[in-house]
């Protein structure tokens, strides 16, 4: 590869998979055996993979919106990297959802051609951040929960989902540490940063209830040891959040009793519609378009 001419270095190859034209990366599970575990309902596994995949896809989009708006370039890199990890997890999970469904839908069709009512992400993933403190508070809550979930999911019975989770554990550990680091720095910072971070925790932490109530799909699959019942994640979650808040000199607000997430059944706020308008607009305007 010649480095003298940047354009030429991207084009002087005998293949068409150079990044200047997109990666052409069409099947993140290419060659991974697609068989389903015995006794598992296709619809249930597809729905479960959409839940975990949509959580990652939608939050990834929210994180991408912060690139060029973060306080420092290092944080833009961090948020872009975290968003990329989540996007990678989403691609694998959506592809697995399409395989389980068995109707021939691939990750792109699932990401770009579903309406808001077909998205199964938790509401926490779609909300817009009022400020950077809310961004890191939400990322702390989300990644603490997802890490506890993936850590258990890695030992469950669908080999593809378990492998995606095992890989994700390494990634989400860094996401959680990043978010926790900022909550501590801002919480234990100036009077203003403390007040704004406490306000963010007061808004975001009470939204976590939906993360710990199993959807019927999760309950059925958990009985077959193919999913994790999120009720069992609460103790670890509370322990980690308490550790962070203590060091950050912040206090936990009182929390309403947990309710099943309306998002898991496709009931979303206007915020998801706004995300999808941005994310799906081009793909819907030029179906199948590549460049």
């Amino acid at each position, binding site marked *: *590869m010649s480095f003298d001419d940047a354009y030429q270095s991207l084009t002087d*190859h*005998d*293949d*068409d*998979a*150079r*990044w200047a034209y997109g*990666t*052409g*990366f*069409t099947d*993140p*599970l*290419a*060659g*991974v055996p697609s068989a389903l575990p015995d006794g598992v309902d296709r619809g249930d596994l597809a729905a479960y993979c959409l839940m975990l995949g949509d959580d990652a896809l939608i939050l990834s989009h929210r994180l991408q919106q912060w690139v060029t708006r973060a306080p420092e370039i*290092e*944080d833009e*890199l*961090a948020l*872009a*990297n*975290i968003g*990329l*990890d*989540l*996007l*990678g*997890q989403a*691609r*694998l999970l959506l592809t697995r959802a399409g395989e389980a469904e068995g109707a021939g839908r691939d990750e792109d069709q699932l990401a770009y051609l579903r309406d808001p009512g077909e998205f199964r992400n938790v509401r926490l993933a779609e909300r817009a951040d009022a400020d950077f403190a809310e961004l890191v508070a939400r990322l702390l809550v989300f990644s603490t929960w997802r*890490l*506890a979930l993936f*850590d258990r999911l890695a030992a469950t019975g669908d*080999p*593809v989902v*378990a*492998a*995606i989770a*095992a*890989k*994700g*554990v*390494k*990634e989400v*550990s*860094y996401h*959680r*540490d*990043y978010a*926790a*680091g900022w909550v*501590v720095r801002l919480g234990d910072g100036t009077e203003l940063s403390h007040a704004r971070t406490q306000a963010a925790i007061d808004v975001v932490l009470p939204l976590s209830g939906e993360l710990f109530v199993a959807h019927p799909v999760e309950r059925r699959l958990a009985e077959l040891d193919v999913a994790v019942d999120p009720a069992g994640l609460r103790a*670890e979650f509370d*322990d*980690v959040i308490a*550790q*962070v808040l203590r*060091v950050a000199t912040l206090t936990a607000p009182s929390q309403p009793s947990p309710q099943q997430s309306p998002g898991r059944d496709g009931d979303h706020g206007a915020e998801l519609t706004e995300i999808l308008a941005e994310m799906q607009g081009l793909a819907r305007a030029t179906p199948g378009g590549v460049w």
Partner: protein
Amino acid sequence: MSAADIAATVTDPELPMLTLAELGIIRDVEEGADGVVVTITPTYSGCPAMEAIRADLLAALRGGGFEQAQVRTVLAPAWTTDWISESGRAKLAEAGIVPPGPAPRRPAGPVPLTLGVRDDGVACPRCGQPRTEQITAFSATACRELRRCPACREPFEHVKAI
């Protein structure tokens, strides 16, 4: 050359000083009646280089006379920096990127929370200062972090041990 020898010469698109074999992402190369099957594993879930890697492997195999070749993905066990070979580590160091130490061994129980900066005992690649500071845990690619030496003040990259 065997298919495995050819596959071993293909370099990584993001760390072009390393071959895919040195990076530890080629897990298997099999020559069978139906052609060559190369099995690779992604470093990170979101690695955008996977298709370029697949295309580079197929192009190299075709160039070496293996027309029938396919590249398969394997997700488990998850890639670890422990799979980067000794020669790979030497080449990273030569390029000014500090190679990773041993991947952290997880104690039983929940994944431990790290508050504050991880002390990985990373020495400065320029002046040898044993203790350096993390600038950010994320850098130009997911697998690298940016650090700074408090003695010579130079920033440098380090491959995170995972």
